[in-house]
């Protein structure tokens, strides 16, 4: 009986210390370990400037969708002048703020599950630094069974780049298959 009480007490102590650590810890392994909220997707964008600047033209992709080296290659003055065929130049202060936010929250620095999967897959793939999220092995593999007619041939989607067209909770960093609704194909199931 005594032994069981000790076990329950130890369990409670762990939960309490974990909860208190949650309140004070910086983001990192320990915070991830003690967090009870779901971290299955990627970390949602919390930086207002990043959100506003990116969303001006396209869906604000979470930094956790690419590793830091990719953001380094994408978010510099030269690269932004020809950002996937478009001049997306930013002033120096804005560029620095966005660059730093993206690099600090990149896939290889995040404890969110999908970010970890992306980081692990990129780390073990040979070749140049990936610049497109859709070309990542993890992302392309996840979408390979979806017919072309549902993406490129679908007026409601057009391209795999428009994550939020099908992933109804993409803005929250949730990319679960249960939250997918392909426009014009409401009955689609994986």
């Amino acid at each position, binding site marked *: *009986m*005594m*032994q*069981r009480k000790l*076990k*329950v007490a130890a369990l409670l102590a762990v939960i309490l210390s974990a909860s208190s650590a949650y309140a004070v810890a910086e983001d990192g392994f320990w915070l991830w*370990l003690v967090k009870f909220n*779901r*971290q*299955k997707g990627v970390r949602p964008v919390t930086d207002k400037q990043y959100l506003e600047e990116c969303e001006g033209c396209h869906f604000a992709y979470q930094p956790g969708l690419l590793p830091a080296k990719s953001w380094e290659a994408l978010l510099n003055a030269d690269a932004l002048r020809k950002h996937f065929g478009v001049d997306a130049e930013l002033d120096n202060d804005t560029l620095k703020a966005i660059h730093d936010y993206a690099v600090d929250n990149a896939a290889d620095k995040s404890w969110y*599950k999908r970010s*970890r*999967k992306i980081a*692990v*897959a990129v*780390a*073990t793939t040979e070749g140049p630094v990936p610049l497109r999220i859709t070309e990542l092995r993890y992302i392309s*593999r996840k979408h390979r069974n979806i017919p072309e*007619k549902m993406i490129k*041939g*679908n*007026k*409601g989607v057009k391209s795999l780049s428009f994550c939020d067209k099908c992933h*109804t909770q993409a803005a929250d960093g949730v990319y*679960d*298959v*249960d*939250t997918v*609704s392909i*426009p*014009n*194909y*409401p*009955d689609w199931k*994986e």
Partner: protein
Amino acid sequence: MGETKINLRNIVVGICLAILSGMVYAADTGMNLELPTASSFYTRNYQSLNSRSFDSQSFYSTAYLLAANEGDVVRELSVVTPVVPESEFKPPLISGRKVHQYLGLGTVMMAGLTMLAAPESCERNCPPPSQQPRQTSGTTHTRLARATAAMAAATVLSGLVFHWSDIHWEDPFTDPDKLHARLGAAGALLMIYAVNKSAHSTEPTSHAPIAELGVVTMLVAIKLTW
């Protein structure tokens, strides 16, 4: 005269009923939100003709035939996809993946209850194990332990079925889904082994540490993909 009065009353009642039913029908029609109200719908929805899975909406297709008969519109029919009226998407309450999730969490909770329902062990002046009474057959602890083991097995099985596409041979050892699968299966096996060990012994035998290790292993597995 009396007959006439009755007939008149019947006629009046009949007319009232007819009017009422007509009003109900009119009200229903007015509130039927599925009917498009803008004329532009009929001309813009010409893509629906190209859809094979759009049979239930054939009304709209017919409407298009009446409304959009321009040559360039007709030529576009072979290249565009259907446009289905959008409705607010609600994730399913239950799915294969969610069943797996609930089973995993249920296993851990059941394991906790099993631990709390464990019979008291002898602490002082204890007789040798062979002479101690067998307390585990038919007790709450036994039933809970068996249910936990069954749930653990069901969790692993549902994971294999519903998450098979998440596991790839080319992914490294550290892939979160691979770690989750390995640790989850190991945890379930440890729990099943602990139950089996106790069930097949003729005297009280220490199996709690194995079961507890199994629970901790499964908890780590859950956390890795939570």
